[in-house]
């Protein structure tokens, strides 16, 4: 993360901690928004410490203009207006170099630069206007959790749902259908389904769901033990799960109950073992063909 974005995020989080969620929600850049939200989530655990930590390092304020949080921008604007002396008077050599470089760039197309800065300005102003709103929008995962727990108690196992939802094995088949059909969630697309060997006798299946309609995204994880790796199939909810689950079965040996065609997909039917498990040993021979472990003479 570059220092600039970091600064912006810190500023936004500080504002959000004071109750202004809109400044984050109004961000156009999705990546920045999600990062800010993630940072906010962390900060909320201990808001006071966060404030203390960052309020000092907060962006230096220029009194002239309310957007001049970024010194370079302000200097460049001045430079564009013809005021080169101020730039030459900057003491910090690095800063001066940066300002000059930015100025050269900006001079190529001063209009668009001013427009960009202007946009920034407008955005910042709106942020300040909306400061009074107190509503904190919950993330999509939190919403799913709330909805799911209402319908299927005990279905979500993890408390920290920032990144993923850990779903209980038993409620998965009903929850999956619910996730697809519920209007406000409407996860109509299963982007990716895969399995993990977590070690310590645990296997995990992960589902990356996406809603084409609402354009939101979540990740679901289900853990099973290696002794009894059985997960209800969602093949009939999302049709692509047919092949994805077959691949997971092929590679990790997670058996999906209710799948209509549970065969290996990439490997031959008579392959032994589950290759992507961490304790997998390559077979010695396959149909009488010796499988070379290492190149001859290359040991």
């Amino acid at each position, binding site marked *: *993360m*570059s220092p600039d974005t970091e600064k912006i995020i810190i500023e936004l989080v500080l504002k959000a901690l004071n109750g202004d969620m809109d400044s984050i929600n109004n961000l156009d850049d*999705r990546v920045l928004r999600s990062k800010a939200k993630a940072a906010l989530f962390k900060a909320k655990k201990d808001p006071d410490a966060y404030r203390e930590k960052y309020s000092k390092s907060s962006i230096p304020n220029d009194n002239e203009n309310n957007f001049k949080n970024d010194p370079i921008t302000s200097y460049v604007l001045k430079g564009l207006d013809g005021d080169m002396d101020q730039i030459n008077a900057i003491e910090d050599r690095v800063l001066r170099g940066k300002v000059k470089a930015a100025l050269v760039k900006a001079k190529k197309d001063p209009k668009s630069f001013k427009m960009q800065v202007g946009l920034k300005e407008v955005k910042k102003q709106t942020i300040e206007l909306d400061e009074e709103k107190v509503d904190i929008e919950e993330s999509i995962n939190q919403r799913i959790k709330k909805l799911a727990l209402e319908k299927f108690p005990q279905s979500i196992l993890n408390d920290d749902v920032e*990144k993923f939802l850990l779903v209980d094995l038993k409620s998965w088949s009903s929850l999956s259908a619910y996730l697809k059909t519920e209007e406000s969630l409407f996860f*109509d*697309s*299963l*982007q*990716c389904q*895969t399995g*993990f*060997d977590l070690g310590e006798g645990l296997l995990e299946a*992960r589902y*990356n769901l996406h809603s*084409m309609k609402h*354009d939101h995204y979540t*990740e679901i994880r289900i853990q099973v033990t290696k002794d009894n790796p059985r997960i209800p199939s969602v093949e009939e909810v*999302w*049709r*692509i799960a*047919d*092949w*994805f689950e077959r691949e997971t079965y092929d*590679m990790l040996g997670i058996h999906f109950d209710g799948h209509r065609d549970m065969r*290996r*997909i*990439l*490997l*031959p039917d008579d392959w032994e073992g589950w*290759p*992507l498990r961490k304790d997998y040993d390559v077979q010695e021979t396959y149909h009488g063909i010796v499988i070379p472990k290492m190149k001859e003479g290359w040991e």
Partner: protein
Amino acid sequence: MGVIRGEEMVLNIGPQHPATHGVLRLQVKTDGEIVSEIKPYIGYLHRCFEKHCENVTYEQVLPFTDRCDYLASMTMNFGYVVAMEELMEIRVNDRVQHIRVVMAELQRIASHLLGLGAFGLDIGAFTPFLHMLRDRERILDLFEMTCGARLLYNYMWIGGLSHDLPVGFVESTYKFLDYFEPKIDEFVNLLVHNKIFVERTADIGVMPQDVAISYGVTGPNLRASGLNWDLRKNDPYSIYNKFDFNIPVGQGGKGTVGDCWDRFYVRVLEMKESIKIVRQALASMPKDGDVHQSLPKKIKPPIGSIYRRTESPRGDLGYYIESDGSNVPYRLKMRSPAFTALSVIDEIAAGWLLSDVLAILGSLDIVLGEIDR
């Protein structure tokens, strides 16, 4: 009108067959010429990509991503480095971003050229295929100029690029684009509007939108079904949000929305959009900037996981990377777009004639290397 039913015959299309685009076996049940059921058997080209990745370091994964979709290696690299950079929170400079976009879009043109040509070949038109290959060669020339390789580049690195652009690349690319744009129109006149071609593709293998979404079909195939969904717009990565381009969507120009003709024509239009992006990226490319500037000394991403999708010529290319803090991926899953595209074949191609099945297969533009990984 009654339907005469005969005894069903099981026919194996492939693994060695001219129209399977690789090593694919389709077990079809046919009643005369009518195909009633299609069962794809894949895995003939399985090279243990994911298992292999668990045994090599992060930078060594790159050459293997090349080899998954060997017709669009640049975008395979691109997806991986975008995911890795997001995981490691590396910001690369503008020049690198621009070069990457230029390469990815040129690669998209190259990949579509081969896909379209091969589709024409499936229908029986041989000449457009060679015309497409001729123009693709020029793109490969550009790539060879850049990184020395013509097919498997290993060009984009985590945090940068392997080489800066060579002298004269920009001019050569402009030259190519100027040459290529009229060729698309010629191609359209030669094949796309040809009545026989239209008869063979329009209204054939219609893929409704909900089926496409449920089967996870993405990319041009999904857009042909009428859904405006492109990760370059909907979930912009790199600097795609800077450029002005349209997302061509299937209109049902010669038949129903989502038929083979739409899937074909969306790709043709996408090439034109890619040309637009390349032109903009070349025009706005910063002159200075070190392509090795942000290369990390050691690639050891923090503990955590990331699922990042990018738009490859075939659709959503997702990399699920799980890191345990070492320099070797704990688990790396590639969500390949052609894999999902192939899975829909039984749904949309059953009930058509044998010739149509192969046309539909061609219209999905699959690459077996990516399906089998």
